[in-house]
């Protein structure tokens, strides 16, 4: 939806004000720090995790075991399957078991090839952002299942990473009742840092708008510290490791 010209003019005005203010605001900080503002990046000898940590790595099998243990410990459902064929039957099986009528999936090549549509002829399966006239957030909100392929995963914390794009909606991993996240084994790393370092490497210009680490089902302990699962996000999360 195009913004009205008036609105854009107002935003432009705000930005001009902000740029005008920035210098003084930042110089105020320099003055408090009793020196002039550095122009060169300051030497940062403590960047990132300690060296002993960066040297730490588990072999693949242990990564898989640890990921599954961690994911299970927080109430998630980890499974390990041999190939995408097995993934298709697993998701189809769960869909009929839970009577899932509405499924939304990302527009990812792995999912396009999965053939979920053929395996579940009775379910309505929508492909994220495949039609510009559709109200996609509503489609995701009504979905029983959201199906995504993870971009990365980290075993030590039991985390799945999903990145947003035209074909990968943030809503797909957030709004449905059940989340099915497929993790190709080769994307599973040991440490969180092995995933995070990619964002520094590709740099600001190439970052997606949303980077989301998901480490289990939505939960809260706000009522008498009593654990509640599924407060706002999906209450049931399957992490399906393939390979």
């Amino acid at each position: 939806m195009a913004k009205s010209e008036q609105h854009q003019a107002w935003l432009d005005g705000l930005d001009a004000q902000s740029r005008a203010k920035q210098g003084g605001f930042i110089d105020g900080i320099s003055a408090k720090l009793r020196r002039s503002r550095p122009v060169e990046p300051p030497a940062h000898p403590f960047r990132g995790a300690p060296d002993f940590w960066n040297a730490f790595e588990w072999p693949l099998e242990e990564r898989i075991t640890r990921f599954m243990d961690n994911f299970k410990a927080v109430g998630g459902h980890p499974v390990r399957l041999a190939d995408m064929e097995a993934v298709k039957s697993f998701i189809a099986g769960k869909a009929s078991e839970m009577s899932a009528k509405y499924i939304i999936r990302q527009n990812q090549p792995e999912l396009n090839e999965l053939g979920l549509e053929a395996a579940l002829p009775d379910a309505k399966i929508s492909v994220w952002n495949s039609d510009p006239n559709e109200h996609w957030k509503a489609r995701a909100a009504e979905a029983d299942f959201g199906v995504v392929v993870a971009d990365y995963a980290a075993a030590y914390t039991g985390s799945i990473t999903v990145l947003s794009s035209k074909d990968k909606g943030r809503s797909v991993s957030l709004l449905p009742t059940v989340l099915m996240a497929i993790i190709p084994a080769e994307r599973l790393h040991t440490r969180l840092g092995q995933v995070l370092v990619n964002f520094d490497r590709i740099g600001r210009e190439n970052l997606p708008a949303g980077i989301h680490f998901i480490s289990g089902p939505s939960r809260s302990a706000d009522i008498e510290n009593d654990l509640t699962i599924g407060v706002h996000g999906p209450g049931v999360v399957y992490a399906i490791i393939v390979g």
Partner: protein
Amino acid sequence: MSGAAPAGGNTVKERADLALNNDFLRKAVRFTTERLRTGKEKAAEDHGNWDEWRERGRQIRLHTIAHLDYYLNLFANNARANGVHVHFAETAAEAVRISLDIAKHVEARSVVKSKSMVTEELHLNTALESIGVEAIETDLGEYIIQLAGETPSHIIIPAIHKNRYQIAELLSVDAGETLAPDTQILAGFVRRKLREKFLEADIGMTGCNFAIAETGSMVLFENEGNARMVTTVPKTQITLMGMERIIPSFADLEVMATLLPRSATGQKLTVYMSGISGPRRSADADGPEEMHIIIVDNGRSLQLGDPEFQELLNCIRCGACLNACPVYRHIGGHAYGGTYSGPIGAVLTPALKKNVAEWDDIANASSLCGACYEACPVKIPLHEMLVYLRRRKLEAGRGDKLEALGMKGFAKVMRSSKRFKAVLKLGQLGQKLVVRDGGISLKVGPLKGWNTYRVAPSLAGQSFREKWPTMEQEIRNGLKEMDPALKSRMEAIVRDRENGGGGKGGHGHHG
């Protein structure tokens, strides 16, 4: 602040007394803080090398704050390059003005909010309501206390002071039907109710756990998914960010992600950790179309360049100091009387205010036990800062006159051992009137508070210094030769110390 805190009273002491007489509150707070504290200790132990991680976290925060001008400027430029509308607010009033201006221009009817302590600082909900915009807290605990018209009493568990029956009552009124006091039922109601609110809202408002300078990204940690909702569904996103929330890079985020969840709740990572780098890309089908980040000072820069308080800006808002604090455990968060409670609140609340007249007795509500410092993932010496605050209050001429006289007397006596000895002698004689079985139970004067809970000991009939001459004589008569090995150990330590090898004695943590 919308609605008064339940524990009224003008001073920490008065509010604490009310809390101490509220048995439920004390039990609830104690139960939860103990669970969180135990969880944190276990998580730190399981992870291992905890002190090295703390030190690393501290160094990253020290470095960033020491170069805050550079990094904040870099962040602002990068966020803008990401398409974010960046704003700078020196005061709370300015931050509120900018927020309301945005709300008016996007013609907002409602704002869904994820937990943000900065917006609590600004009393932003009240301001939004004043222009007819409904502000809805969506974190379960925050939603509950908003219904109750209260403020958070814990930085991580805002409704720590309420039990499920009180919560069921509040939510039943909201639902228009009676809800059973069952956590699943209550949370289920809030899920359904807030789903509608998320989908209707015009603005999503968040705080900011960390802001990454090199990429202009803002990072949120949460468990419920409400912060993701708030940053995914509404058309406009407004993020309010304390100006010190910066870290340089995603690599540094790994250290913060290691320290924050473990210290807050004992989790390896919160269920969701999201890095948002600007509004939705043009081809995206969700995410905000317009994104604003308001960078807020509101007293933070008062700490910059102040050697005693600059480290306060290192705080990552985990709440570990609250859970470790024996005072917080007994009096709860509202007794502190500010947005931030517990040890961090006791220091931060007065530190954020320039006007010393607003410092009440908050810094006195600590036994200086240091549990906060030990629990802090970035090693902020809060127990020392509390002493600096007490000193500054006196320097500002706001001390208690009677106490000042007492301290003058104390110094006069303790400056000279002769006076100290004379006072001891007087005491030994004088106490004969009140001592019973070697103890004093009298509840008058300064003994009143002490003796309400204890029997005071009496002075010894003979002080150590009076006994010493006889004792020394006996020892010297029966003196044993020192083992040569022992002697050489001691000599080595003294030598080492003189050569500077012993550092600062090598046997203490003080700097």
